[in-house]
C-alpha cells in the first residue's frame, strides 16, 4: 500500500503507467480469490458429498447425482438405516442403540483423556516454566525434552506391550484403559502448548502475590490459571480432536464394550457391497461433533497451534 501511495504522488503525469499498475493489482486479486475458492471447494466437497449421499437412494448414487432437489429428491434412506430419521427416531432400533453406545464411548474416552492430560500437563508445564528442577543429571531442559519427545513414539511400539499388560491388568476392552492410553498420546502436545502459554504470562504477577504471603499453589490457582484459561481451552480442543479420531489403539485394544466410533465406522467399511447411503449417514454422524467444534471454536484451535509454533 505504501508503494502505491508513493506512486500516486510521484507520477501524476504517468497515467498509462498507473493503468498498468492497477491492472496488475486486479489480476493479483483475481488470482488470490480464485485460489481461495478452489481450495475451499477442495476442503468442502468431500464433506458435502458425504452429507448429500446420506440422503440418496441407490439410483441417485449409481447415476452420480450431485445437487439435491435439482438432480435428485432427498430421501431419509441413509438415516433410516441408522434409526435416526424422523419416522424411526421414536421406534426401537438396534443400529441406533449400537451407534449411541459407540458415540457415548468416544465421548467419555476422548473428553476424559483430554481433561486428564490438561490437568497433569498444565501442572507440569507450569512447573517447568517457573522453577529450576534437578532430577539426577536432568535439568528443566531435559525434562521438557523427555515429555515432548514422547510425540515421536509410534503407536505400534506401545500397542503390543499394552495388549499384554492390559490383559494382565484386566483393562482390556475397558474405557479406563483406553482413556489412560489417549492421555499419554496427547500429553506431549498439551505440555508443548501450555509451556509456551505460561512463558507468556509475566512472572512479576506471581512474585507480587507471593510477597503478599500466598504459597506457590495459591498463586498458581488464583492468578496464573485464569490468565492461562484460553490456552487451556485450545490445548483441550486439540487433544479432543486427536483422541476422538484415534483408531489404531481402539482397534487393537477393544472388542465389544469399549469400542469407539472410528472402530464402528471401520468395521462397516470392511464389508463388501456396502450401502452407500447408510455408510454416508454413519460417516456424517461420526464427523458431525468435531465439524461443529471446528465451526464454533476455530479461534481456540488456531490460537493454540499458533502459540506452539512461534517462540
Amino acid at each position, binding site marked *: 500500500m505504501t508503494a502505491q501511495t508513493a506512486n500516486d504522488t510521484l507520477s501524476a503525469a504517468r497515467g498509462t503507467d498507473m493503468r498498468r499498475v492497477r491492472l496488475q493489482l486486479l489480476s493479483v486479486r483475481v488470482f488470490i480469490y480464485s485460489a481461495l475458492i478452489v481450495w*475451499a471447494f477442495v476442503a468442502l466437497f468431500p464433506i458435502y458429498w458425504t452429507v448429500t*449421499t446420506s440422503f440418496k437412494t441407490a439410483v441417485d448414487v449409481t447415476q452420480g447425482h450431485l445437487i439435491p432437489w435439482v438432480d435428485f429428491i432427498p430421501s431419509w434412506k441413509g438415516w433410516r438405516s441408522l434409526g435416526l430419521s424422523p419416522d424411526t427416531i421414536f421406534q426401537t432400533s438396534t443400529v441406533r442403540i449400537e451407534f449411541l453406545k459407540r458415540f457415548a464411548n468416544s465421548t467419555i474416552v476422548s473428553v476424559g483423556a483430554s481433561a486428564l492430560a490438561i490437568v497433569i500437563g498444565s501442572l507440569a508445564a507450569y512447573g517447568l516454566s517457573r522453577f529450576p528442577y534437578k532430577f539426577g543429571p536432568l535439568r528443566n531442559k531435559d*525434562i521438557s525434552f523427555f515429555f515432548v519427545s514422547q510425540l515421536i513414539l509410534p503407536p505400534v*511400539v506401545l500397542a503390543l506391550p499394552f495388549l499384554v499388560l492390559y490383559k494382565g491388568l484386566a483393562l482390556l476392552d475397558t474405557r479406563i484403559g483406553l482413556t489412560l492410553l489417549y492421555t499419554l498420546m496427547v500429553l506431549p502436545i498439551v505440555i508443548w502448548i501450555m509451556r509456551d502459554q505460561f512463558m507468556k504470562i509475566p512472572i512479576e504477577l506471581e512474585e507480587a502475590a507471593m510477597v503478599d504471603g500466598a504459597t*506457590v499453589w495459591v498463586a498458581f490457582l488464583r492468578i496464573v490459571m485464569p490468565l492461562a484459561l484460553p490456552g487451556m481451552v485450545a490445548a483441550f480442543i486439540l487433544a479432543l480432536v486427536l483422541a476422538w479420531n484415534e483408531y489404531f489403539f481402539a482397534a487393537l485394544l477393544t472388542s465389544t464394550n469399549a469400542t469407539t466410533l*472410528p472402530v464402528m465406522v471401520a468395521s462397516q467399511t470392511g464389508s463388501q457391497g456396502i450401502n452407500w447411503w447408510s455408510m454416508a449417514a454413519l460417516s456424517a454422524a461420526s464427523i458431525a461433533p*468435531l465439524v461443529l467444534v471446528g*465451526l464454533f471454536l*476455530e479461534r481456540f484451535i*488456531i490460537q493454540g497451534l499458533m502459540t506452539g509454533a512461534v517462540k
Partner: protein
Amino acid sequence: MVDTSGMSGHQIHGAGLEHVAEGRRKAGRLLMRAASALLIIVLLIHVLNLTGVIGFGFENWRPILFAYVLWSVALCVGQVFTRGELGYRALFVLPAVLFTVAMVIFPTLFGLYVGLTDWNLSSFDGRKFNGLDNFRTMFQDAFYWNALRNMVIFVLAVLIEYGIAFMLALLLSAQIRARKFFRVVFLLPFMLSPVAVSWMIGKSLLEFRFGPAATFARFLGWESPAFFGAPWIARISITVMDAWIFIPFVMILLLAGLQALPREVLEAAKVDGANAWQSFWRITFPLMLPVSLTAIILRIIFKLKLADIVINVTAGGPGGATDTVTSFIFREYRDRSNVGYGSLLAMFYLVLIIIVLTLLLSFARRRVERVT
C-alpha cells in the same frame, strides 16, 4: 520443539527454602518407606503366586496398579513433608512424570523383551526366548523393507504438502475479505477422523464406478480410472487423502509464523522497490525458516504414524505398494498374532525414527543458524 533452551531468566529461584521441621521430615520419610514396602510386598505376593511358591494371591495384576497409584500419592505427599516449599514445587511435575514413566518406560522395556522372543498368541507353546532370531528374520523380510521404502516416499511427500500449506497460509494472510470464513473452511479437514475420510474419499469419492472423481477422470479422458489399481497411483491416492487432512495443520503453524514477522522489514523492502516475488524469497522465506522446520518436523512425526487410511482403504495393497510400517505390523498382530516378531519390527522402527529425526534436527539447526 526445535528449541527447548532459553528459559532461564524467567524462573522463580528458591534460596533458603529448604528449612523443614525435623518431625515433619521424619513423618514424610516414614510415609514414603511404608508405601514402597507395600508396593514391593504386593508385587512379591503376586509373583510368588504366579510361580506357584505360595498358594494364595490376586486374580490379576490390578492390585499392583493400585499399589503403584498409592505409592505415587505417598511419594507426592512425602515430598511436601520432607522438602517443604521445594516439595510443593516438585508437586507440579511429579504427576506427569510418574504417569509417563509408568505408561512409557515400562511398556517399552517390556516390548523390547517380547521382541527377542518367539511368541505367537495363536500357538500353544507360549513365549520362548530366541535371542536375535527375529532380528535375522527381519533382514530377510522383503515386505518389511518394502514398507520402510514406502515410508520414505510418503515422508518425501511432506515437502509438497508444505509447499501447498505455505501458499494457503500466504493467501490467508493477504488482505482478503471473508478471511474468517476461509480460515474455518480450510481448517475443517483437520477435524475429521482418518477412518471417516477413508470412506468419504477413499471408498466413495474415488470409487471407480460411481465416484464423482472417477466420473470426472472419465470426462477428462482416462478410460478406466482405478485410483488404487497401479502401485504409484495408489500411493498418490493415499498421500492425497492424508495430505487433505493434515495440510490445515501445517498451514496454521505457518500462518502463525507469518503473523509474527516483523512488519517493518517487509515495508522497508517494498520501499526499496522489491516486488512481491523478490521480497518473498529474500525476506519472508528466510525469516520463516525456523517455523517451517518446526512445522515440517511435526508433520513428519505425524506422517511416520500413518496407518488408519491405509488399513481401511487398501490394506497395504496392491501388492504392498501402499503398506506403511504401522499397517504392516498391525496385520502381523491382528491376522497372524505374531507378537514377538511384530514387537521387534516396531522396536527397530523406533530406533530408525530416533536416528533419522536426530540427524534431521541437527542438520536443520545448523542450516537455520547459517541463514539467520
